[in-house]
């Protein structure tokens, strides 16, 4: 594994890919072998209290996604693909364009009833129902994904990784069993390291390892879907003693997903539990464990193929044994950072092929879904707040 440590999969794949894509454009015999795709969205957010994606109490336009990707299929078993992403989500997003994914897919078996394939490079993690397409507005059930499961604050840890992945499916009658196994590492940078190490302390995240296993079982072409995700992340927090001490962090995540489609109605629910085990981090020589718990219940109604409406109830507790958030005070944060309850109603209107306009209204109780970096002053954080958003999006 020495070589992989020196040349992370993502970088290696990125270099390989750019070379291959240049060759591809020169040698592709049929235009179908080489394909472009992309998407963009621009949103506007207003909150009556607290900042969400920019200075939202004054109405923020810092809510933008632009993606451009290319895939090359030189052979029906082999697919190279890469996507660059520019994302603006106020202070919670990285600067500039990032390699969103850059991978090679090799199909080992692709029969009707059974398939198996290998992937390597920077991949989108197989995580619950929506993670892999979370930046493409038109694929989301709402403008803002349920923060209970897809918290913007943890995006950098859960979203993608430099990995090797085995994926497949097995069909049995009306049932289709999809499965993915992944082994890799999280591509931290100096900004995302701050999710785990306080800003006031120098330090970095070392030796991080990631394993993910997910299975999604579909019945009758996706009328009913069940999902189970197990995600485990181990790392060493290398820092000088301060608010926290150097030590180990192990994160075990379990997600149950369920969707039921009946005529024009769609019911979706996901439940997640994250067990974070800190060794020496809070008190040298001691192990401490925090168990977060979250879920959402969502009901969507498709008025016609163009218009969809939905309602959702979304709940998150940073520590299920401290639901009122008393433990947050130790870190100089308000108690309301320990939980978030969100009631949302919204609509999505596909007014033309590839175009969508979406809007929604949120009522939040709790501030756990806010970025600390955008709300640094604990005394200004309000527990009760409302969020209004509109978003225009296009994809091809």
């Amino acid at each position: 594994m020495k070589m992989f440590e020196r040349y992370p999969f993502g970088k290696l794949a990125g270099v390989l890919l750019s070379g291959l894509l240049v060759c591809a454009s020169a040698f592709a015999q049929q235009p179908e072998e080489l394909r472009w795709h992309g998407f963009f969205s621009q949103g506007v957010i207003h909150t009556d209290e607290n900042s969400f994606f920019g200075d939202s109490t004054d109405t923020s336009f810092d809510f933008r996604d632009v993606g451009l990707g290319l895939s090359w299929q030189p052979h029906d078993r082999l697919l190279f693909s890469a996507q660059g992403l520019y994302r603006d989500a106020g202070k919670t997003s990285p600067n500039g364009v990032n390699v969103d994914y850059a991978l090679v897919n090799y199909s080992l078996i692709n029969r009707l009833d059974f398939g198996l394939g290998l992937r390597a490079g920077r991949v989108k993690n197989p995580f619950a129902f929506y993670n892999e397409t979370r930046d493409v507005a038109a694929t989301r059930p709402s403008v803002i994904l349920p923060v209970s499961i897809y918290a913007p604050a943890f995006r950098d840890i859960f979203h993608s990784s430099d990995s090797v992945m085995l994926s497949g499916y097995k069909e049995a009658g009306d049932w289709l069993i999809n499965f993915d196994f992944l082994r890799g590492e999280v591509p931290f940078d100096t900004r995302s390291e701050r999710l785990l190490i306080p800003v006031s302390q120098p330090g970095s995240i070392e030796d991080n390892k990631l394993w993910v296993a997910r299975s999604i079982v579909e019945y009758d072409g996706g009328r009913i879907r069940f999902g189970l995700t197990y995600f485990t992340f181990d790392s060493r927090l290398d820092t000088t003693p301060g608010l926290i001490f150097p030590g180990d962090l192990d994160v075990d995540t379990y997600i149950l997903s369920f969707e039921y489609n009946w005529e024009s109605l769609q019911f979706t629910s996901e439940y997640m539990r994250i067990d974070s085990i800190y060794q020496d981090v809070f008190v040298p020589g001691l192990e401490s464990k925090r168990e977060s718990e979250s879920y959402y219940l969502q009901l969507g109604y498709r008025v016609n193929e163009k218009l969809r409406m939905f309602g959702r109830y979304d709940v998150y507790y940073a520590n299920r044994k401290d639901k009122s958030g008393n433990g947050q005070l130790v870190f100089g944060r308000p108690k309301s950072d320990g939980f978030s309850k969100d009631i949302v109603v919204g609509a999505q209107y596909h007014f033309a092929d590839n175009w969508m306009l979406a809007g929604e209204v949120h009522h939040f109780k709790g501030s756990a879904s806010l970025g600390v970096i955008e709300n640094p002053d604990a005394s200004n954080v309000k527990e009760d707040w409302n969020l209004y958003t509109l978003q225009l999006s296009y994809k091809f």
Partner: protein
Amino acid sequence: MLNVTIWVRFLITVCLLSASNLYAENQRVIVNAGFGGDDLTRNTARAIFSMRVKRWEDGAAITVFVLPDTHPTHRLFTRETLALFPHQLRRSWDRYVYSGIGTAPIEVESEEDMIARVATTPGSIGYISMEVLNEDVRTLPVR
């Protein structure tokens, strides 16, 4: 009185069944004339049009052609032949394309284009609502 109710229900059922058969017959899956099989099961058709299965049983690559999401023939084909909603197919393609693990079908503008592309692309599949008069294209029943 009860008999009348049963009879009315029976009539409605017959009407509904014949109506759905009428729709089904109007939708034709078409393949390039080089294809060796006689029919497709609904599950096979779903697997192919959702872009999960990319090779025929003999190992040849499949090329899938579709009409735009809002095209009446596309909507009817998805609903009646595949028994899916157009947005379900779209979700599956989006997941492949935007996470880099697969591709979407090739979109053509009209049924005439569909016939022309299927006729000239070995291993290809599509669908139409009209009669085909092209010896390089075969229609295929979906069971």
